[in-house]
């Protein structure tokens, strides 16, 4: 922990500032081992909106511009797998649990700084998939959170209009999850590829 503090003074500084300003915020730093060195702040979902509000309105960084919201899926096997290595490490804490994650990339237009990255994680991947919506704070998240709800199935509480964005309303699954299985109801064309050819042939046999 001491070493990491020396490596990432800026992100740790921000985390400390949030912890000082918001009661029981419990913000920790998530370390990014890649050469990009974009480390992120891991927020508690229950305190996330308070922290975000502080970051936008009162903090010295004035993060007024939310650029990107991304969903991630961390199923059990992606976390426990030793090789290839873990892309995101949490400083100090216990290892990551299987979860869905929302990552927000924040910038400040007034001070031209960024990106400052915050991330939130759901409790699990099946029934406790609620996260607080940050749309009331940055409207930029409106369509992007809808997209994550659509493709990952994170339920953003407090979102003004949480509907599917890209898939049709009757669609049931969440296609960007890593364990998503494609439905096998296409009309396969007889392409030369092994498995598609096999599928198309079995389909033709079935229909004839």
């Amino acid at each position, binding site marked *: 922990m001491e070493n990491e503090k020396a490596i990432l003074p800026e992100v740790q500084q921000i985390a400390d500032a949030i912890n000082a300003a918001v009661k029981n915020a419990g913000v920790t730093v998530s370390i*990014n*081992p*890649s*050469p*990009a060195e*974009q480390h992120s702040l891991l927020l508690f979902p229950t305190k996330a909106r308070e922290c975000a509000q502080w970051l936008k309105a009162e903090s010295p960084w004035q993060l*007024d*511009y*939310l*650029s*990107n919201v*991304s*969903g*991630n899926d961390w199923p059990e096997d*992606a976390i426990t797998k030793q*090789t*290839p*290595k*873990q*892309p*995101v490490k949490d400083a100090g804490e216990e290892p990551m649990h299987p979860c869905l994650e929302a*990552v927000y*990339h924040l910038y400040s*237009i007034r001070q*031209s700084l960024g*990106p400052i*990255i915050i991330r939130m994680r759901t409790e699990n991947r099946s029934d406790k998939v609620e996260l607080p919506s940050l749309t009331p704070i*940055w*409207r*930029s*998240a*409106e*369509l*992007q959170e809808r997209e994550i709800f659509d*493709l990952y199935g994170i339920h953003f509480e407090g979102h003004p209009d949480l509907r*599917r*964005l*890209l*898939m*049709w309303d009757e669609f049931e699954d969440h*296609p*960007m999850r890593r364990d998503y299985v494609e439905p096998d109801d296409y009309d396969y064309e007889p392409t030369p590829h092994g498995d598609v050819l096999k599928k198309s042939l079995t389909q033709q046999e079935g229909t004839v």
Partner: protein
Amino acid sequence: MTPSPGRPTEAMPQFEMHATGVEGATEGTERMEVSMGPHHPSTHGVFRMDVELEGETITKLKPVFGYLHRNHEKIAESTSYLGSMPYTDRLDYFNSMTNNWAYALSVEKLAGIEVPERAEYIRVITAELTRLQNHVSLIGFLVQDMGALGTPLMYAFRERERILDLFESLSGARMMCNYMRFGGCRCDVSADWIKQAQSVVEAFPQFLDEFEALISENEVLMARSQHVGILKPELAIDAGVAGPVLRATGVNYDLRKVDGYGIYDRFQFRVPLGDHGDVYDRYMIRVLEMRESVKILQQALAEIPNGDYVNPKAKLRGFRPPPGEAYGRIEAPKGELGFYLISDGSPKPYRYRVRPPSLINLTILEDMCLGQTIADAVIILGSIDIVLGEVDR
């Protein structure tokens, strides 16, 4: 869509709308729901708006997405890093060069690859040429939406063609260039190509003068576009609006200046800003930006150094970035285009996310259209400059 009382629920063609509106207009106006699109010529693709009208005035507008959705991000997760490059061409198919650059930039951040100087120059040149052809065709489409059928659009496409010819002789394809690689570009530019590009760039300001004489002072255009679709800067920042739409509100935020990615800090250019945030400002911003792009191009074409066009250490096959994540963004012609990548050390990205400027700029479509007439919604949408390949991905 909830049916309004006494009205059929399905979409009605526009010409009927006026007829019924007049018929029923005994006292005041009538509430009506119209579904514009997905096959409406002015929606620039398969995009639909559920519009609620009071007479001709818009009281509610909900954009509907997804007709062109192909889950680009999922496809990228199942192919190699290099294999996603040609797919990025098909995001915003007007600007394949900048899409390539944004993706290459993010991967270079993720893997810590350096880009040789000549490659940076080539990237700036191709990106600015892309900006020229995007803006020129956009203003052609925009005035077409306002009723200037044909003529300005054809003039715009005539100029765009010259730039596409340059792209074709450089990369082999006019629109699906697939030109950038991690750590540089796919092939070198010849001295001959630079000469050709110079002559195109030198002739461009003259065309802009002509185009402005043709349309900028046109009274119909001014009447249709001034004080229409006004966007306030506070809302624009809050809603993550980027690019020319943001700068038309007067917010000085151009990533070429702010981030200075690539080698943009070496060139002298100015960032044009609007002050009303209406459709006319968005039109003018694009004309002015093209003039600045010409300046950048003149400098870059004159100064381009010799050297490698690609980092010789960068691998083409079997490329595995170290584990970690990176977010890279550039100022694409339509706004801030970003790529968020997570690598787990394998040859395929664990997560690949596109920050589509066209989609996020549509967040404020309803806010801009409320209180305007239905005919204005068409030009407000046109002035945002969307491409459905990027909106729906």
